[in-house]
């Protein structure tokens, strides 16, 4: 759009002898045509596109749910464990009671680790999807 903006109202003030040469480009041969086509297809929601997108969303969803279940299982089981095995608080690890290690220290690196793992997986799925669409 900036190309068009350069010409226009500015040459209206004096009678220019000759209009300047302009290069008219119908199609840029360097542009990745196939990419545009598949992307347009996605945009237009053809049945192929819909199927592909739905599959991709499902993959991402499965990954997220699997990791969320892992988190829920790990943390959800703790209160029940403490309730059923009250002697756990008498065990100590390096001078700190076991429940305090499990609740006060361990969760933070664990949560970061799971987050890191998800980031790697999600970005890999996105790359695969883009590769497939742009092939």
């Amino acid at each position, binding site marked *: *759009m900036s190309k068009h903006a350069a010409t226009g109202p500015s040459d209206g003030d004096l009678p220019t002898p000759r209009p300047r040469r302009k290069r008219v480009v119908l199609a840029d041969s360097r542009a990745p045509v196939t990419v545009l086509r598949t*992307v347009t297809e*996605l*945009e237009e*929601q053809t049945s192929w*596109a*819909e199927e592909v*997108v739905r599959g*991709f*969303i499902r993959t*991402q*969803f499965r990954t*997220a749910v699997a*990791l*969320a279940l892992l*988190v829920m299982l790990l*943390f*959800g089981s*703790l*209160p*029940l464990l*403490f*309730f059923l095995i*009250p002697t756990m*608080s008498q065990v*100590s690890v390096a001078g700190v*009671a076991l*429940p*305090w290690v499990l*609740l*006060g*220290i361990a*969760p*933070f*690196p664990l*949560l*970061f680790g*799971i*987050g*890191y793992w*998800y*980031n790697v997986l*999600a*970005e890999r799925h*996105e*790359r695969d*999807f*883009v590769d497939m*669409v742009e092939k």
Partner: protein
Amino acid sequence: MELNAWAMAGILLVGLATFSIGFRSSRLANTTQDFLVARRTVRSRRNAAAISGEYLSAASFLGIAGLVLKDGADALWYPIGFTAGYLLLMLFVAAPLRRSGAYTLPDFCEARLGSAGMRKLAAVFVIFIGILYLVPQLQGAGLTIHQVLPGAPVWVGAAVVSGVVFVNVFGGGMRAITVVQAFQYWLKLFAIAAPTFVMVALFFGDGGVRGAGVTGLTDPMPPRFPADVVITVETPVVLTVTEPVTLTATGGRVDGALGGRVYWGAGQHTVGEGTELRFTAGSPVPVVQGAPPDNLSWLRPVSGAGDLFTTYSLIVALFLGTMGLPHVLVRFYTNPDGRAARRTTLHVLMLLGLFYLFPIMLGALSRLYVPELLVTGKTDAAVLALPMKIAPGLLGEILGAVTAAGAFAAFLSTSSGLVVSVAGVLSTDVFKGKVRDFRFATFIAVAVPFVIAWSLRPTDITLSVGLSFALAASTFCPLLLLGIWWRKITWVGAAAGMLLGGGLVLAALVANIVSGYTGGWAPAFFQQPALVTVPAAFLAVLIMSKATQSQLPLDANRIRMRMHAPDRLGFIRDRDIARFGAAEDRARLANGRHRR
């Protein structure tokens, strides 16, 4: 505690630094996009620091240590939940929400569900959650100022925070606040880490627990006062005594009789307003009703079936509530794209995990050194009171000044974030969305919570914050999760879920406040109802959406694709530019995709 000049100086410095950083960056802000989403150009690292800075509120800085002091192991679920909430946000919400191109949470509702009514409803809840979250921040500020400057009435702190926040948000909106919040994360981390290191070193230097001459944290006995102490009870309390104790009470009623030399046997005792209690060093500490009375039960998590229920309810509220907090989500809109939003969350997980180690340690230390807070129940003051007890003298004063300054940074940054998000919604949904409207909305978003904070009785900061998490988890969490991942959600279903979930939590909140004034009849369940309200809200959305499939938005598939397609394909279309943007931006957007 006498006037602490160091602490006052620390607080003033934080206020001044906040003000000047905000002022400098607000000169760059002039468009509506600047005020709403900082032009969506915030890099993921700075954004992560800003998110963490905004998120580490009074509840994190003061509240967690206080609750650890009082409730012990069960309180550790708060920092876990506060952090894990971000993991779930990252898994399900971060990237798709950013790609939706919305600029506020209500705007997302309209974009996804195609209903202007839904937008209004969401706006109402954003404002509600914002205010519910702001009030404890302001009350915490009042508490801090009161602790540092005992002569000052409680409203002074709230007024100072409101003033600084108002000026910053008024001047530069999101653009100014981003830098301020990122700065305040590092400030808070320093303000809690440095004193913790020094105090832990002093503690072990004294020979640990044995050297301090108090009950060890694993002994089945109540904690003991490390020194003679005078405690002023400002609001009436009921205390639990497990080991008989003698004390002197003056100036008020104890167990219904006038004070004097009193002997308390095991059982419950009531203390009236304005009573001064004197305990000698080494006598066992009576604790407020409901808190674990001896150190062994304090150390042990989940001591009964009722505890089990409350713990699970808390886990649900915190894990799912974070993704529904409007002031957190609004920061995700400032990322350039979905991938950056995800990376931002990953950084946040690291920054939060780093921070939360320290309040936990401080809470455990204060059980040894400041057990007198257990008598009044005002355990939120633990972080502020601890330094003077561990290191009396100049060192303690300086450490106290550092923690007080950090606490003040916490109030400032969280309140700023909340005010920006509430003002953003007010200005775009109630007013026309011009910069002038944003500034007027800022005034309302500061003034209303200030009046409420002034008039309501303060409770534990973390508990009231816990309730706003429950509200967020029962309203926006179902809407976001199902809106992003479930194709068949309709606006009717979303509205039904929001009204049911939100209504239930608000009913619990009102019941809580009423019971607080009329004798505390509400069961503990009312303080944390998420285990019931969140599934109810999810069910309502599912059932009502299934019943109203004719209301499916026509472009549901396209919007879903836009939310999930990788950024490189270039489907993001920012709705704020479409609505408020410069003419050139609008034209570019109307042309279709803009590839980066």
